[in-house]
């Protein structure tokens, strides 16, 4: 992830503390950059929703509110287990750390699986993006923009979830190996920050895509 992923003091730093603070700052800047990536799509959403309020309203009625809501709970809980994993590391409890990380990974994978189920359902109905739109209940004009944005926003978010799961697996392996001590576990903290961003983005997606009906 970054130079500070290992706990050695690198030559350009005075102290480990300074190095960790720098890594945290770098992560926050990266998260700011990530937010702007999503912001572009949110801007598109805002513009098109302003242009097609009725169509967006009608289209969102076909979103799968049940799965969307379950996934919201899953992600929020996974943020909790992530925070608990860091807490356990601070108390020096390695086995607990690994267990909480495993739970977070399981939640992340569960989110992805439900997302795939949701996508499959939509595609079977013909609610597909762009030129592939074949949903007979609603005329394409304007509605297809909601559908395309739905896939773009949730797809980009799901990519982030999947990337996050990969990072979490790596962190869990390192935690298992005993890489993290109560004083030094910056990689875990950074992974946690990233995971919380993924969660936060979903908290915007849920109302914008599922709850606007």
């Amino acid at each position, binding site marked *: 992830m*970054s*130079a*500070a*992923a*290992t706990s*050695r*003091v*690198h*030559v*350009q*730093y005075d102290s480990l503390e*300074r190095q960790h*603070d*720098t*890594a945290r*700052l*770098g992560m926050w*800047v*990266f998260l*700011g*950059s*990530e937010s*702007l*990536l999503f*912001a*572009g*799509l949110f*801007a*598109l959403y805002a*513009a*098109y929703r302003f*242009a*097609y309020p009725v*169509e967006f309203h009608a289209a969102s009625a076909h979103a799968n509110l049940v799965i969307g809501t379950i996934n919201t709970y899953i992600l929020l809980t996974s943020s909790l287990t992530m925070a608990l994993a860091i807490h356990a590391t601070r108390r020096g409890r390695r086995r607990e750390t690994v267990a909480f990380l495993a739970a977070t990974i399981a939640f992340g994978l569960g989110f992805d699986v439900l997302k795939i189920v949701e996508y499959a359902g939509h595609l079977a109905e013909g609610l597909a*993006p*762009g*030129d*592939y*739109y074949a949903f007979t209940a609603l005329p*394409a*004009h*304007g509605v*297809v*923009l909601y559908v*395309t*944005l739905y896939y*773009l926003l949730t797809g980009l978010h799901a990519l982030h979830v999947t990337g996050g799961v990969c990072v979490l697996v790596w962190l869990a392996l390192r935690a298992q190996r005993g890489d993290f001590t109560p004083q030094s576990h910056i990689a875990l903290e950074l992974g946690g920050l990233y995971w919380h961003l993924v969660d936060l983005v979903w908290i915007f997606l849920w109302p914008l895509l599922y709850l606007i009906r």
Partner: protein
Amino acid sequence: MMTDPRDASSAGGPPPRPDPTAAVEPDYLRAEPGLRSWLTTTDHKRIAIMFLIATTLALMLGGTFALLLRTKLLIPGPGFIEPVTYNRFFTLHGVIMVFMFMVPVIPAVFGNFVLPMMVGAKDLAFPRVNLASFYVYVTGAGFTLWGMVHGGADTGWTFYAPYSTISPTDVAPIAIGVFILGVSSIMTGLNFIATTHMLRRRGLRWHGMPIFVWTMYATSIIQVLATPVLGLSVSLVALDHALHMGIFDPALGGDPVLFEHLFWFYSHPAVYIMILPAMGVIAEIVPTFARKHQFSYNALAYSSLGIAFVGFLTWGHHLFVAGISQFDAAIFGVMSMFVAIFSAIKVFTWIGTLYRGSITFNTPMLYFFAFVYLFAFGGMTGIAVATTSLDVHWHDTYFVIAHFHFIMIGGTLTAFLGAIHYWFPKMFGKMYPERWGLVSAGLVFAGFNLTFVPQFLLGNAGMPRRYYSYPIKYHILNVASSLGAYLLGSALLLTLIYLLVSLRWGKRAPANPWGSRGFEWRTPSPPPVHNFVAPFDPAKGPYDYDQPPPDEVPPVST
């Protein structure tokens, strides 16, 4: 995870803490020979050199396309290339020059090399991220070049929808390449922000830093906050082109102008990614060769942040004829003019620094004069095109081409050339031949003006940009412009040749050939691996020409 080669020997033991009083380290060029140690280095100076090689190759490639275009335009009618080939060439010229040369060049080469030294650090905050940024750049460039060989693109570097989504050429790989190049740019910006905040030498306050660091900081903010939006918008075009997502397709209710908004939200600030580092270079050159303190340090420092901030609010001036409301157009026009205020503050500050200075006319200084003239001229034509009524006449004509080439080539390229001459002794420990430098600087200036002044006239007379042929009445000016392009190209080639020659046969450079007070000159040339032999005293400022040079400057090692 890659391991830091410098730390490899100490695995398990206590971290190596070089003692400043210990024997002098070998310089960074000779420390670990071999291609492998270069390709896996995390030393910011070596990464800077690798970027210098890569961006120079990009400049040569982009320049070749420019010369081919100008060769075609020597004659009004059909020429030696097909119209669609012409379209491919100007697209590739733009994509290569903007994303592979102009955006990365000064941050990734000179920022990488001198920024850590200017804040007194041994390296950047995240050296491995820095190395990764180089390989990400190479990957992005690879994608772009592959797309270029495979089918090219004929959309122009702006990828305007809806044409870009239906173009028969290979838009997708080139757009993906641009996305990847953007990631590299974000990594550089992130590294510089963290380094400036966290790795300043003890006692070095924000207001004691060289101006170059301020401009790099302002640039980094734009890189980090605007580049993701570019990445998103070109990805949407790539998706649209490859999979027909239709997000900008009017047939499905989409709005192509939204693409322009998203694209220019990055690409206008990107102009400041290109010009702010250039201003930083100039701000280092002027006090050194005028032997004087900056006329107003604060004005220079804060005007950089001002440009970075206002730069985010000006994108709409690219859309004056795209159907935005008159009210929006007026706001964007006025916001664009604010940029001129901050730029003028900088220009007047440099002039103020020159006033009663003890000026040396050598190559970097000559490039400074070229920069001021071309940048001021280009900037003022910028105000002209920011005026909505005038822009309706000039929009998409050669006037706009000439305007932004005055800023990008006249501004950024001359500053790049000034920087390479100014820091050449520090980077390679050799002097470049001053006389050849002066000659080629003069030729660059003459060639540039001969190329682009006729284009102002052509644009004003109504010649549209990106056209393959033109009426006979534009012939003479087009020929003049093409001849200027050949002159400019030859001057750049001359520069490349004598710099390469002096790498080997140049005179040995002392630690501080210019008598600069800058921090990066208080170490041998080329610098040791960890930059300084002994920590410098930041209380003796980088522009403190009232005092004799600090005695920290070590003698030339033999």
